[in-house]
């Protein structure tokens, strides 16, 4: 900021100068590399999605596809939106004869979820986690009601994106689709 005591012509001169600097800046940008990412053309190539991005909830499973959820309903209670509903039943263990709670249905309504991660925090068994699978749009709301114990999740529409996809470099744009 400069002092304001310029003459009529001095004012015009400095005004024109600032305008010229503005024009120069935009002209430089006109010829520099652009910043638009071309999704969905790049979804299988140069797309990067943070591995920690919360796209949807899935069950953590071991190599035999067994889940760890015991149906304790802590996540259900932690959820501010009631988007998790758990059905359990008591079954008798044939060997020990003790009664044990068993998960019947783990219903997760993706449409109601606000991705606050409180359910994951509440879980004592590391049974659930979020993945960065973000292409979840469907035409029917009912299809957003998922049953996590019944599905075998293999990485959604872009399985190679789960670990982040293409590398990210701060300060660089990737406008390419290949």
């Amino acid at each position: 900021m400069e002092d304001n005591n310029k003459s009529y012509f001095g004012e015009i001169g400095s005004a024109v100068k600032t305008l010229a600097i503005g024009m120069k800046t935009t002209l430089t940008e006109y010829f520099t590399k652009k910043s638009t990412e071309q999704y969905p053309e790049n979804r299988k190539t140069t797309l990067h999605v943070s591995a920690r991005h919360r796209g949807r909830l899935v069950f953590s499973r071991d190599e035999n596809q067994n889940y760890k959820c015991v149906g304790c309903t802590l996540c259900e209670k932690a959820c501010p939106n009631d988007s998790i509903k758990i059905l359990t039943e008591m079954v008798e263990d044939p060997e020990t004869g003790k009664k044990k709670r068993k998960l019947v249905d783990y219903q997760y309504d993706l449409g109601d979820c606000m991705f606050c991660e409180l359910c994951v925090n509440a879980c004592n068994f590391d049974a659930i986690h979020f993945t960065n699978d973000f292409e979840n749009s469907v035409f029917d709301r009912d299809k957003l009601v998922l049953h996590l114990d019944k599905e075998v999740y293999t990485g959604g529409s872009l399985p190679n994106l789960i670990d982040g996809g293409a590398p990210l470099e701060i300060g660089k744009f990737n406008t390419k689709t290949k």
Partner: protein
Amino acid sequence: MKLNNIELTFENFANEMAKLKNEKHFDYLVTIIGEDFGEEGLGCIYILENTQNNERCSVRTIAKKVDGSDVIPTVTNLWKAADLLEREVFDFVGIKFLGHPDMRRLFLRTDFVGHPLRKDFDMSPEANKFPLTDEPEDDFTVEYSLDKDGHLVETKHRLFEEDEYVVNIGPNHPSTHGVLRLQTVIDGETVKRIYPHLGYIHRGIEKMWEGMTYPQTLALTDRLNYLSAMMHRHALVGVIEEAMGIELSDRIRYIRTIMDELQRIDSHLLFLGCTAQDLGALTAFLYCMRDREHVLNVMEETTGGRLIMNYYRIGGLQADIDPNFVDNTKKLCKYLRPKIQEYLDVFGDNVITHKRLEGVGPMDKENCINYAVTGPAGRAAGWKNDTRKRHPYDCYDKVNWEEITMTGCDSMDRYYVHIKELYQSLDIIEQLIDNIPEGEYYIKQKPIIKVPEGQWYFSVEGASGEFGVYLDSRGDKSPYRMKMRPMGLTLAGALDPMLRGQKIADLITTGAAIDFVIPDLDR
């Protein structure tokens, strides 16, 4: 800060408040909390601050029952900021402020029945049907006062004259940054009077909080000013941690400071862009948005969110920083510094910008304090109001930084304060980023979090002002009353005095320059 309230009665309230303001120099009214104290009845807590020595105090008074209404004398004659704050209390708790010139509802519809933050409010869906009619609007407002027999009397005031040209700027308007509605009386191009109407995105977060456990309350803060998501959550976890007496590790403090500053950069970049866009310079807007992308990328790698971060939690952080975080942040700082000059080249130093912003929406230091215009807008008038300096939290007392103030009192200086604060945030980050100590990123808490009884207030410096959370706990697993001091509410209240006699285009400019985000002030 744990509140030790000065208790005042109805009779000595007005005098004692005047003494606090005039003799003890408590000239900054931080917020007014209307609360249903249960057996004691309705009442208010006033949080005041002395701008000379940054001392805070809180005053509590219980409303007096007069003719079936609860009344408290107004303090609008002492602190102008009380105007909207008292209307908010009236709206939510139903206390009528005697002598307040404009006692209308602020957030809820004029035909809303009841006052939702009273504990006896009927929450059943049948009693709260979604209205299908238009909101009735009156040209009159009411003022309550007591006559000499001690009865409550209503005086009507006219809001608009018959032949005044009233334009609604908002709620759907490209440059109110959300759904703010400004009922503006104009004469040709000149603004004569502005009545802000709020509540178009009011979600009743404070009411919802009362039914939530403490961890659940966190989920809503990111949805206030979505550009200060980190700071909002910081204030909330801050007040809960203070109340519970949780000692954080240094690592958590460092990371929180860095994240807050990254968020500030994010918000300020958007501010610079939106100011440009409101002035019609779309290109400058897109340059800012382009670079903001990198800031978001850095944060997303660690937090998993770009807008809704969900990063802080009671007792620490959601997750440890990403392995590349330090590296990425350094790259970001290196990338961003020359870009700030570019924004100035293309927009900030431009003669048209100067002509559009200089002398626009003026408000001097004294009025800024009186209207509680905190944040960059207040600092542009020379008021040292940065919460990071006044009441340092986390690492802000360890890093080396100077509070930025300017003296122009106008929109141009508000713009430059933002520019300087960008550099400042980068400086703070660069001081901390190499020195993040090892340690826990999360202090394990009990599965069910209970806060001991008491009242606390904790505030942080949001991107556009002081953001504070007041917590009244009765020892439960959910709060008895939680109240935010939104950054934007007092800013919106200051629009009218700033803009009388200015042009319509100046209204847009000033709105952009004082930087409010509506979901934050509507809550």
